[in-house]
């Protein structure tokens, strides 16, 4: 049984490697680091595959590892991109006022970690909210509330008007 699960895990990783790379890249923002993140995540997953309970859990379990590796790498480099100070973002803060109105992607990358994770997993990776709750170890309602508030913030940030 365990052997089978292991093979399924490998197959899942190989099949979806591009997705993990893109997700990693969206946080670390350079190719070398993104490759490291994916490689480390694969290494950790295969080492600890004994923690994996069943086939259904593969997806959320592996996404969790990828995200952990992303943040571990960012911390190690001592450049937390996504904190409130916005210290190292590519776009200086002043630009958020006008020019970057149309750049929702950049806005998303500037949001606080939790919200950013949720938005990326939901809209870019197209995961269900319940899966996201599993990955982030959050209550489903917390995920919903954070997403809701996040989208509101985005709407203000990009100047989207209310009304029909």
């Amino acid at each position, binding site marked *: 049984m365990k052997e089978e699960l292991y093979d399924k895990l490998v197959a899942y990783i190989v099949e979806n490697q591009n997705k993990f790379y893109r997700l990693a890249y969206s946080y670390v923002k350079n190719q070398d680091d993104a490759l490291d993140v*994916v490689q480390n995540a694969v290494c950790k997953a295969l080492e600890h595959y004994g923690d994996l309970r069943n086939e259904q859990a593969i997806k959320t379990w592996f996404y969790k590892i990828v995200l952990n590796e992303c943040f571990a790498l960012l911390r190690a480099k001592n450049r937390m991109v996504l904190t409130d100070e916005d210290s190292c973002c590519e776009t200086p803060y002043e630009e958020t006022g006008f020019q970057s109105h149309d750049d*929702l992607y950049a806005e998303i990358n500037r949001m606080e970690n939790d919200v950013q994770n949720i938005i990326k997993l939901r809209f870019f990776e197209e995961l269900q909210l319940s899966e996201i709750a599993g990955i982030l170890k959050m209550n489903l309602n917390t995920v*919903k509330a954070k997403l809701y508030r996040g989208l509101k913030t985005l709407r203000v940030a990009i100047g989207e008007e209310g009304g029909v």
Partner: protein
Amino acid sequence: MRRMAQAKQKYDSIPIPGELSERVMQEVEKANIQRSGKKKRMRRIQRMRRAVVAAASAAAVLFMVGVNTSEVFAREMSDVPVLGAIARIVTFRSYDTETEDMNISVEIPGVEMISEELSGLEDKINEEIHGFCEQYAEGAVERAEEYKKAFLETGGTQEEWAEHHIAIKVWYEVKSYTDRYLSLAVAGSENWSNAYHETKYYNLDLREGKWVTLEDILGEDYARIAGKSILQQTEQREKETGLEFWTDQWDGVDESTKFYINDAGNPVIVFEKYEIAPGAAGEQEFEIVK
């Protein structure tokens, strides 16, 4: 309005370096060597190679499926402003059953809401939609079985029956999805009988978190406004197509009148076959412009 779709496009166009698959395989091979003893090693690697080939072909299939679902998803996103994305339609459950007698295909939608205030509504909506789907599918199976019984009792043979290819289908369609409204049609049909076809419309006000009524959209005087508009439109269609409407037998618009909401935010009143015109004319739809 298309910003979320654009953001995803940007994300999806992050280039994938060729090195990625090498790095991934490097870890896979390394883990294999660690896991298995030297004797088992070759066998294991062979097995893994097979698994990887299988995975690659599975990925090709998944990709095709992925294109379809993403198209729906992209459409959904491109039409909706950011905050409008507080609700999403997902296929809650879908199954295909093929028995000796019939083929049943059911696709049940589910609504996923993210607003805290709407979470009670989410359960209520989903319960109602799922109830309708299950009920329709069960009823359809019963009707098909009765039909088979009657067919055989009146001298039909098993072989002739097999020619019927009975198919029962339950599916859904998103009619419109705007900042304000989410309008969903859920339909059931049976291929052997035109009489059994049922469509239910679910119209949600995403801001108020409640079902939308004609009165909400057209105001207190909705019955008169919609009734008048329909009569004008039937007259016009009679002139244009020669089709005869049965408007004198029609009771007018009331709170049970079926409608969906179109992209313009206008209600569209739907009459099933035989309801207001001869069956051959099919369903008749009337947009009531606000």
